[in-house]
């Protein structure tokens, strides 16, 4: 099993969700995050004082998937989230030891 973690533009959440659903992946955890990378921040002005905001809002999606699907899912994420501009985000993958469904006690791939 592999955990895929990706940080995306907030506007791309629906597209990515739809793309992943096509691979039969229905479980995921989505978090609103802020972060910085290559993308420039923005300036906000409150009563004449400028503030440069370096951390920008992003969406983080985490999901655990069977190893055999990882490459295809990553491709689907890239296809649906890519605009080509700086700020499209990143994907990270990790190996997962085990997964347990609390309700039934199922383990491994059956539990995800």
């Amino acid at each position, binding site marked *: 099993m592999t955990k895929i973690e990706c940080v995306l533009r*907030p506007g791309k959440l*629906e597209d990515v969700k739809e793309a992943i659903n096509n691979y039969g992946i229905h479980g995921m955890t989505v978090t609103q995050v802020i972060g910085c990378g290559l*993308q*420039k*921040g923005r300036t906000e002005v409150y009563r004449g*004082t*400028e503030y440069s*905001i370096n951390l*920008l809002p992003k969406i983080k999606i985490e999901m655990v998937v069977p190893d055999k699907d990882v490459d295809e899912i990553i491709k689907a994420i890239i296809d649906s989230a890519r605009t080509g501009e700086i700020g499209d985000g990143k994907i990270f993958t990790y190996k997962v030891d085990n997964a347990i469904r609390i309700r039934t006690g199922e383990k491994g791939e059956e539990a995800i």
Partner: protein
Amino acid sequence: MKNRLLQNIFMAVACLLTIPALARAEDAAETIAEAAAPAIDTGDTSFVLISAALVMLMTLPGLALFYGGLSRKKNVLSTIMYSFFAMIVISIQWSLYGYSLSFGPDVNHIIGSLDWVGLKNVGFEPNPDYSATVPHQAFMVFQMMFAVITPALISGAFAERMRFPAYLAFLILWATFIYDPVAHWVWGVGGWLRNLGALDFAGGTVVHIISGVSGLVACIVLGRRKGYGSLPMIPHNLPFTVVGAALLWFGWFGFNAGSALGANSLAASAFVVTHLATAAAALSWVVTEWAHHGKPTTLGAASGAVAGLVAITPASGFVEPMPAVLIGLVAGVVCYLAVSVVKARFRYDDSLDAFGVHGIGGTWGALATGLFATKTVNPLGNDGLFYGNPGQLAIQLIAVVSSWAVALVGTFVILKVINVFCKLRASDEEQEAGMDITQHGEDAYTDFVLSASLFGGGGTPASKTSASQVKPVM
């Protein structure tokens, strides 16, 4: 010490100014008594001034919160700014020439002349054509608040996607070429709809039909919001919306009862029927939605109340309490169907339902006036269909059709003209980032920013500023 001195000077100046003023007032009082000219009634004047303040409250904060709560959190400030700037810009426009175009001496039954530009000849003497017992300026400022709220209502249709500079141009052009003439037609002495006998007590056609229909045109011309239909576009703060609706309800007593322009029984009647129709519409909207979708919603109660207020507006000075309840009950159902079924069917993106509530509710109200109006409430009005005068319904229909027509055509032309000079629609990227950041450079809910500033120059600096300029937001 310095303050004391200033205070003394101020007092001395105030005294000097007051003495001649008092003398003038006495002179004036004598002249009035001699000529039996229209006298200022203190009760009527205080009522009209308070009503003007109540109608002001409808736009800010009433409508601003109502619409602000319905928008998404990245667009709440831009939505509020639409209402705020309607107040700012139209107040000035009205005093410069708007009032003159609407209520000034008639030109060919179409428009007021420019005799009252800059409020020239609009003084403290009552104008018996409009309100014989209150200072002319009190009437002017009361009407100003109507001129302010009308374009602000339209903003609900194109919220979350119209660029701010384009909105400013739209405000001024729309007020000048649509609101002011239509207000003259219906309310101005010599206006052709007024001469025809169309009944519109507090602005069903002038305010609600033309704002709602203009909203429909605007939302179609601007196109749907980016992601409409695929992204969930749900209200971000319903308590805001409920507070806004409640303030609208409260302020509407000034709007409708104040339109009696006197502290009298007609005002009391308008107050009562306004309240009853509103309650009835909120009830019927919630019950309809309950039957249709299984839950009685808070947003339904707030929306139904506004629909009822809209519908009773033109009728408020002409109908009895029980017909008012009926008008409200129908308004709740009809407007609910307009925003839930009709909008979904035709897939136009009226973001916050300006057309569904104001256009449809206003149309129903204007027609209902032709059904239920009676001279027992207001001898200056007329009887409607159910009181033996079917002709009134036909007149109301003419008023409805002509205000729909002018709003449809006028708004379309105005938007197309503006679009030549100034792009109307925010780009997809701007809409994605949110109008608050892209149009105004602000964030309504800055909890993320607070934590962001702790990281100091963690990222690359924002354009045109250095990284070291990050300051804690206090």
